[in-house]
């Protein structure tokens, strides 16, 4: 996994609540046997019209907005546990998702794939959404070490929470597999004693 320390980027606003994983990546795209390539179908049914042409009104098809930060409405990532949702976001190029609430399983899946989910309170989320919608060039600054999300233009400088272990993983570009492999001996001993 790539190391994550700080990120300065423009952001893409998605002011929709309860974005479920079926919207992020519809079930019919789950037949693939690799993790890459899902970005093409990210938000497929919002991004494309029934005839396959791009829906110009959808934010990802609007060249005004760009960046590796997605700012979305409350309860992002609810529904099916499919990790493909996190792969699709990562493959598309998102490194951070900001929302006022994340579904549990999605949050875990995101962290396991190097995407940082940042939870901020609803009022600040609305301010953020409004500002980036109106000022597509606004840049956000994220500092994982100090757990801060800042947008100078509107005087936003927020501390966000992250589990100490997960933070360590992201900063070192470690994932759970690397960590578990480093624990091989302890696991072997446990196996020998218990099984």
């Amino acid at each position, binding site marked *: 996994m790539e190391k994550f320390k700080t990120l300065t980027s423009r952001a893409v606003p998605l002011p929709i609540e309860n974005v479920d994983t079926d919207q992020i990546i519809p*079930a019919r795209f*789950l037949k693939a046997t690799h993790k890459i390539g899902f970005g093409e179908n990210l938000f497929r049914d919002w991004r494309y019209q029934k005839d396959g042409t791009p829906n110009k009104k959808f934010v990802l098809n609007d060249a005004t907005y760009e960046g590796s930060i997605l700012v979305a409405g409350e309860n992002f990532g609810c529904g099916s546990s499919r990790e493909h949702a996190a792969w699709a976001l990562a493959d598309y190029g998102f490194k951070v998702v900001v929302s006022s609430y994340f579904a549990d399983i999605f949050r875990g899946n995101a962290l396991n794939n190097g995407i940082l989910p940042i939870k901020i309170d609803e009022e600040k989320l609305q301010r953020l959404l409004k500002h980036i919608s109106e000022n597509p060039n606004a840049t956000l600054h994220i500092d994982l070490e100090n757990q801060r999300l800042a947008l100078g233009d509107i005087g936003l400088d927020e501390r966000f929470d992250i*589990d100490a272990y997960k933070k360590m993983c992201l900063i070192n570009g470690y994932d*759970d*597999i690397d960590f578990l*492999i480093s*624990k091989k001996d302890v696991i072997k001993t446990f196996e020998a004693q218990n099984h």
Partner: protein
Amino acid sequence: MKKTLFDKVWDAHVVETVPDGPQILYIDQHLIHEVTSPQAFAELDERGIPLARPDRTVATADHNVPTIDQHLTIKDALSRKQVEMLTQNCTKRGVTLYGLGHQYQGIVHVMAPELGITQPGMTMVCGDSHTSTHGAFGTIAFGIGTSQVAQVFASQCLLLNKPKKMRITVNGRLNDNVLPKDVILYIIARLGTNSGTGYFVEYAGEVFENMTMEGRMTVCNMSIEMGARGGMIAPDATTFAYVKGREFAPKGEKWQKKVAHWQTLPTDDGAEFDMEHEFDAADILPMITYGTNPGMGIKINGRIPEMNDASFDKALQYMGLEKGQSLINHPINYVFIGSCTNSRIEDFRMAASQIKGKQKAKNVTALIVPGSQQVAKQIKEEGLQEVFEEAGFEIRQSGCSACLGMNEDKIPAGEYCVSTSNRNFEGRQGPGARTFLASPLVAALTAVEGKIVDVTEMELV
């Protein structure tokens, strides 16, 4: 300290607690299938690491397989590739595979219990949310994402925070015609689809004590539909009798030792739960869902509630139903009896007993999809096959089928289906398909009548 069933099994599997972080939980048994494993195998390849315990891993092909002509090459290219990848990966990594055509192939949550792979006191995982099914044996069993499948491949462990504990007690005697499916649909309707978030559930009380293992599996299967990680039921004589003698069950002296251990697992008197709910069996009637999540359920002779809420309206609009409406006599063109919730032999016996000597209604397409090859074999041996065939039902080969509509078995857009599966989400059984979740009894009688009938006070044959 007084411990719950969940505590006892969990604590016995903690390898280490990371300071300020999660716990390393040892996994006894890992089940895999074609849809959520390829990326995890690829992870091993990319890192150049071995599969830690192939001997604790068992595979089957179920989600994306056809239910007709399983002996032929799969027609859909992507499905074929997924199934082939599973075979290649299992061969390469030394994993036992019950693939298409194998006598043990089946839906992963039907296959493992019937082979005695599922045993009390174990930790079990699978890249499928209905892994909670195995909790019926007093097992900690839950669904995981593909990254976690890779973690288990690499280390036979998972990094997890211990969930909170909830107990749901149902005492009393069940009414006539109330099946385990009705019990769990009732619980979810009462508590809601988010009530279990962050919890592991224990089902306790007379109703579950008196249930067969098949019934307990139906209940635990749907724990995830109230948002819980999993659900479990204390192992008892019923559990031991079910496991005993099965292919992978311990034998001889080992068996005695295991049973002695399993008997220590039930929750201690006075052990504490973070949340408790209690229901009276007498209040439960045959159930059916009317909306687009499993919590939108009513007693079959009840009426759709009158609620003013945008998502409620959206659900009813999708279903083509009205507030305050009764579902009795609602015409139905499709009936699906299958899925890991209700595709065990007991379910088909129940259905067959109601169908025997009758004909399905002309308008109905009725699908019988056994949960496994073994169940399919039993259906034949017990003479149920003739009953279904004579009644005009279509018997398919085993797999997930119309539960998720990933293969060709889909319900057409706009059509209603009474289904014994576990999810009635928009498009779950096919784009635009409208699902009513119910028990195998309700499903069988619907197929015969061509419409939903009130089974509440019916005298059954």
